[in-house]
């Protein structure tokens, strides 16, 4: 085999490796994006208790995604698009909070809708602690971490069937949250 042939074969092998790598990387990225754009848990249909104050929301259907402890988490459809909501588990169909973001949910840019409750006890500082952790996440999200101002993890909550919830939460300041896949890779962070 001549030197020229060897070089040609090496270049061909290198190009093939780059092409295969690119295809795999693109597929992986596309697959990851797809997983962050869907919620497989369809829940089961529930009739909402339409109090007079909820009438104006234009909610057209509701599915109970899951019950975690004393909380029920819902996927809602409104005339304006998808919403999520939550309420007491002992009163099915009763909503206490509703979040209807503009545009689609979930997406890779917005794979989590956090319904967690935060509490401030100081008038002077913008420092809040966690009162309750709760929310809805896309298929690709395996856990949610609540972060200290230093960036360390204060609480990690698993996502099961697109729902996360924790009633027992640590004291101390919380500055944001991050979403991780099953391998522990960070997928998204807020703020």
């Amino acid at each position, binding site marked *: 085999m001549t030197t020229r042939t060897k070089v040609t074969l090496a270049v061909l092998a290198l190009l093939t490796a780059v092409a295969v790598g690119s295809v795999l990387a693109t597929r992986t990225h596309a697959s990851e994006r797809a997983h962050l754009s869907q919620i497989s848990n369809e829940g089961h249909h529930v009739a909402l208790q339409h109090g*007079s*104050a*909820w*009438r*104006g*929301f234009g909610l057209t259907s509701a599915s109970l995604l899951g019950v975690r402890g004393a909380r029920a988490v819902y996927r809602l459809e409104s005339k*304006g698009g998808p919403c999520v909501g*939550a*309420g*007491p588990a002992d009163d099915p169909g009763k909503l*206490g*909070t*509703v*979040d*209807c*973001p*503009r*545009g*689609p949910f979930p*997406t890779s*840019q*917005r794979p989590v809708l*956090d*319904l*967690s*409750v*935060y*509490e*401030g*006890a100081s*008038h002077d500082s*913008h420092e*809040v602690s966690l*009162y*309750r952790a709760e929310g809805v996440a896309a298929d690709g999200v395996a856990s949610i971490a609540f972060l200290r101002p230093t960036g360390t993890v204060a609480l990690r909550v698993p996502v099961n069937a697109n729902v996360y919830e924790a009633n027992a939460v640590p004291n101390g300041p919380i500055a944001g949250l991050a979403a991780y896949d099953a391998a522990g890779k960070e997928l998204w962070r*807020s*703020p």
Partner: protein
Amino acid sequence: MKRLALLFSVIAAAAAIGLGQPSSASAGWCWPSCSGYGMLGAGTSTGNGCWYYSEVCSGWGYWYLNGVAKTCYPGCDPYNGVTSGRILYGYENRDRIRGNFTSFAGKRYVQPGELGMGGYLRAQVSWWSGTASQINVGVTG
């Protein structure tokens, strides 16, 4: 051109009617009004002793529902509605303030009981970080 202007007027009116108002039921307090949006940013205040300096809050009352509509203005990702302005919306009493965070355009509603609160409260929306948010707040009692 006149037709275009008329179309925008109709859209603006429809958007204004949508707002954050929970329903036509007793809207006890609105900000900045019950038919328009205002900018909530650093230093924005209703001047009635709210918990934070940059906050709009109702008077004291036995509130039932706090509804907040946040628009994309002054800028957001048009597909996802992600803005750079973060707000905290909920309630406060003399001891604490509680709420949910959002930086997304859209509408959301919360009752005091969801935040573990009840009784004599103030409904609130606080600027938290980033750019000012264009919002409308409607609270029912």
